[in-house]
C-alpha cells in the first residue's frame, strides 16, 4: 500500500516547526506504524537527509515511551492503543496521514515528534508512592486485600504514563494520569496512611507544571491505551476535598 505522510519537523524547542511531505510506496499492511517510520528514516538517511526523531522503546504497548498525534488523534485511529501497536491495516491505501507531536504546554517539543514528559516524573516524585524504605516490610500475608480491591487497584495502576490523556485534552490536563496513581494507592491498605498528604502534593505539583484543569469532557479515557477510567478523576476530586476538609480540622 502507499501512504502520503505530512510530518511535523522541528529542529529544537526554540525553532519554528513546519509540516513536511513524504511519500512511501509498497508498504505491507501488517507493518506497525513505527516500522513504517523506520522505513521512512532508512530512506531519508540513504538520501542524505536527517531522519525523523520520534520516541519509542518496547514496541509492545507497555513502556509508554512512544506517542504522537496521528490525524489529530493521540496514538492514532484505534481506541485504547499505543502508537507501536497501531498497524497500517488501520489505514486506507493512498491515504494522507498527518503526524504531529503530542501538544501541551507542559510537554514542550524537543525535536520533531519527541516531547519532554518529565513533568509526569515530578508529579510522582511529589507523592505518588508509599513511603516504605527497603527492608521494613511486614510479611505480605499480614496485609489482606480482597480480590476485587486488588483488581480495582490494578485497573488504575496499569497507567503507562504515555501522556495521551494530556495530548488529547483540550485543556492539556494531567488529571487522568495523576488520579490513576492517587486511586491505585488509596484503594490499598498500605497506601491509605498517606492519602491526604499524597493527593494535596500531587495536585499542587500538577498545577505547578502548567497542566490545565479537568473540565470533564472525558476525551482522555477514550484515547488512553490502558482504558483508565475517568472515575479515577472523580475519586481524586473526592480525595482532594476530603484532605482539605480534614486539614482544616
Amino acid at each position, binding site marked *: 500500500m502507499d501512504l502520503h505522510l505530512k510530518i511535523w519537523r522541528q529542529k*529544537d524547542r526554540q525553532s519554528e516547526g513546519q509540516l513536511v511531505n513524504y511519500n512511501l510506496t509498497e508498504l*505491507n499492511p*501488517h*507493518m*506497525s506504524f*513505527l*516500522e513504517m517510520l523506520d*522505513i521512512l528514516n*532508512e530512506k531519508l*538517511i*540513504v538520501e*542524505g*537527509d*536527517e*531522519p525523523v526523531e520520534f520516541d*519509542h*522503546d*518496547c*514496541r*509492545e*504497548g*507497555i*513502556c*509508554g*515511551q512512544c506517542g504522537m498525534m496521528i490525524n489529530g488523534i493521540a496514538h492514532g485511529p484505534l481506541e485504547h*492503543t499505543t502508537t507501536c*501497536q497501531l*498497524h497500517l*491495516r488501520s489505514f486506507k491505501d493512498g491515504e494522507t496521514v498527518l503526524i504531529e507531536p503530542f501538544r501541551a504546554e507542559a510537554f514542550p517539543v*524537543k525535536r520533531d515528534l*519527541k516531547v519532554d*514528559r*518529565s513533568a*509526569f*516524573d515530578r508529579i*510522582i516524585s*511529589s507523592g*505518588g*508512592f508509599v*513511603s*516504605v*524504605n*527497603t*527492608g521494613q*516490610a*511486614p510479611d*505480605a*500475608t499480614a*496485609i*489482606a*486485600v*480482597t*480480590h476485587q480491591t*486488588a483488581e480495582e487497584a*490494578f485497573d488504575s*495502576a496499569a497507567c503507562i*504514563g504515555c501522556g495521551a490523556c494530556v495530548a488529547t485534552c483540550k485543556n492539556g490536563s494531567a488529571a487522568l494520569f495523576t488520579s490513576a496513581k492517587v486511586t*491505585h494507592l488509596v484503594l490499598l491498605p*498500605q*497506601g491509605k496512611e498517606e492519602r491526604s498528604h499524597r493527593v494535596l502534593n500531587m495536585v499542587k505539583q500538577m498545577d505547578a507544571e502548567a497542566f490545565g484543569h479537568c473540565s470533564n469532557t472525558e476525551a482522555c479515557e477514550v484515547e488512553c491505551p490502558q482504558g483508565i477510567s475517568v472515575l479515577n478523576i472523580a475519586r481524586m476530586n473526592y480525595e482532594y476535598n476530603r484532605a482539605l476538609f480534614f486539614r482544616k480540622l
Partner: protein
Amino acid sequence: MILNSKIPEGPLEKKWENYKKTAKLVNPANRKKLEVIVVGTGLAGSSVAASLGEMGYNVKSFCFQDSPRRAHSVAAQGGVNAAKNYKNDGDSIYRMFADTLKGGDFRAREANVYRMAECSLNLIDQAVAQGVPFGREYGGYLNNRSFGGVQVSRTFYARGQTGQQLLLGAYQALMRQVGKKSVQLFSRHEMLDLVLVDGKARGIVVRNLDTGEIERHAAHAVILATGGYGKIYYLSTLAMGCNGSAIWRAHKKGALMASPSWIQVHPTSLPQSGDYQSKLTLMSESLRNDGRIWVPLNENETRKANDIPENERDYYLERRYPAFGNLAPRDISSRAAKERIDAGFGIGPLKNAVYLDFSKAIKEQGKEKIQEKYGNLFDMYLKITGYDAYQEPMMISPSAHFSMGGLWVDYELMTTIPGLFALGEANFADHGANRLGANSLLQASVDGYFIAPYTIANYLSQEIHTGKISTDTPEFDKAESNIKQQIEDFIRINGTKTVDYFHKTLGKLLYDYCGLARNEEGLKYAIGEIKKLKQEFYRDVKVSGKGNTMNTELEKAGRVADYFEIGELMCYDALTRNESCGAHFREEFQTPDGEAVRNDAEFQFISAWAWAGENNEPELIKEPLVFEEIQPTVRSYK
C-alpha cells in the same frame, strides 16, 4: 588471573547470614560523603538507587529513556518467583534453589542461587508494602501460579503485567528519593565509558542524548544495572534501546565477561511475519499453564487449525516430556519447537511457528476465567496479528530473549574492577546456562534491594577517607577525548549503508550460527563473517546529522559497533564449550533422540573472558564450579 568468587564459609543456608554478620558498615554520618553512580533504572537499577538513597548515600541515577519508568523490566509479563509456600504444596527455599540450579543445567554457583531463593521471601513483602497489586484470592490472600521448569506454584503475578507493576513500585521508591534529593536523576543520558583511577572504578562519561553534550560524572563506586544484550540479534523480545554498550565498555576497561554465548531463546514469542519487522513480541510464558502446544501430524498441512481433528495433532511437548508437558523449561521448549519447524511441521504463512491452543482450557474453565487470567495478552495478540485467540489457537515461535551471560561478578556482585558492580541481567550470576521463568524479575529485584546495599557498603567502608573525586583528571580527559573521537569518526565515514542494515545482518548471522543451535564449523564461519562485517561498517556506514545535537542514528551506531565485538566473543565462547548445556546447544553433543549432552568432567566451570585488545583473540579464564549440596545429574523433564 585467578578468580576469587568470595563465597562465604559455612553451610549453604548460613552463608548469606554469615556474610551480613561480618560485612563492614558505613556510619550514617559518613554516607553523605560518599557518591554512587547507578546506570540503568530497571528493577535492579531503580531498587538499588532507591535503597542507597534511603540509606543516605549520594546517588546519581542514569537512564537512556525519557523517564526511569520506561526501563524494559516494565515489559516482563508472567510473574516473579518466591518460595513462600502459600499453596502448601511443598515449596521451600531449598526446593527453589534446587529447581533453579537444575534449570540452569548446573552451570551456576550454588551459593548465589541459594541466596536468590532465600531473598525471594522478602521481595514479595517489599513489593506488597509498596502497593504492587499482586493477584489475590477472594479471601484476601496472595495468589500464585506455576511456571515452566517447576512443579509447585511459586509465581506471584499482577495479571500479565508483573514486570510493569514491580518496576513502578521500584520507580516510585526511586522518585521518592529524587524528591528528597538523595538521588539525582539523569534521564536521556547514555553511558559511553567507564573511568578508572588507580585501578578502581571512579566514574563514567555519558552523552546527554537531548543536547549531544559529553558529561563527566565521578563517584566512589559505579553500579551497572543496564540489562542484557539480547538485542544483538536485532529481532528479539527486547526494547529497541536495550544494548550491551555499558557493560562492553567496562569489559574493555578490564572487567571480565562471563558466559557471553548463553542467551535464552524464549519459546512463546510471536513469529516473524516479514523483513520489515523491528522486533518480536513476547507472549507471557504463563500462557503455557493453560495453553497446549501442538503442530499438525501431517507435513505441509494446509487445513486451518480448527479443522484439524484431535488425532491428527502432535502435542509434542506432552509426548516427549510427559512429566512437565507444556511446562517444560524454556530451552527445552524452544528447541523442541525448532525441531518440529525444521522437520517441516511448522505452521503459519512462513511455516515458522507452532500452535498454542486454549480451546480445552476455555471449554473446561469458561472464556471468562481465561479472560481474567490472560485477557491483556489475548488483546495484544489481536492488535498485533489481527487474529482472535479465543476463536483459534495462537501462533508462537522461539525468539532471542534474556542473556544469562554478562559481566563476571563475585558473591558481592563486584566485577574484576574494584568498585564496579553489576546487577540484574548485566551480570552473569544466578541463572547458569538457562533462566527459569519468573526468575529474572526476582534476581534483578533482590540484587538491587537486598544484596547490593550490603555488599556495596562493605566496599564503601574502605572509601570514607578518599574525599571528593574530581572529574578534572587525565583519566577523565582521555575517556572523554576517546568518545569524542569515536563520534567524529562515525559522522566522518559518511558511507552508503545505514546502521540498521549492519545490525540486521549481524543479527541474522548470529541467529543462524550462534542461536538456538551451534556447531564448530558454523561458529568459525561466523567469527570470520563478523570480522568482515565490522570492517565494512567502519568503511561504509552512514550516520546522518551531527555529533553535538540529538541524534538517534549516532546512538545506534555506537551500540552496533559494540555488538560486533560482543558477537565475536559470543562465538568464541560457544566454540570453546564442547558440550550442550541450557541455552547452549552444540549439535555435535546430543543424544540420538536430540537431547543435550553435558560434559561435567571437562566443562564444570564458568568461562570468564578478558579483553586482549583490538584484533586479538580474547583470553579465557576459568572459575571452577564446586557443587557441595546437589550433585549434577542429567537434566530430565520426561
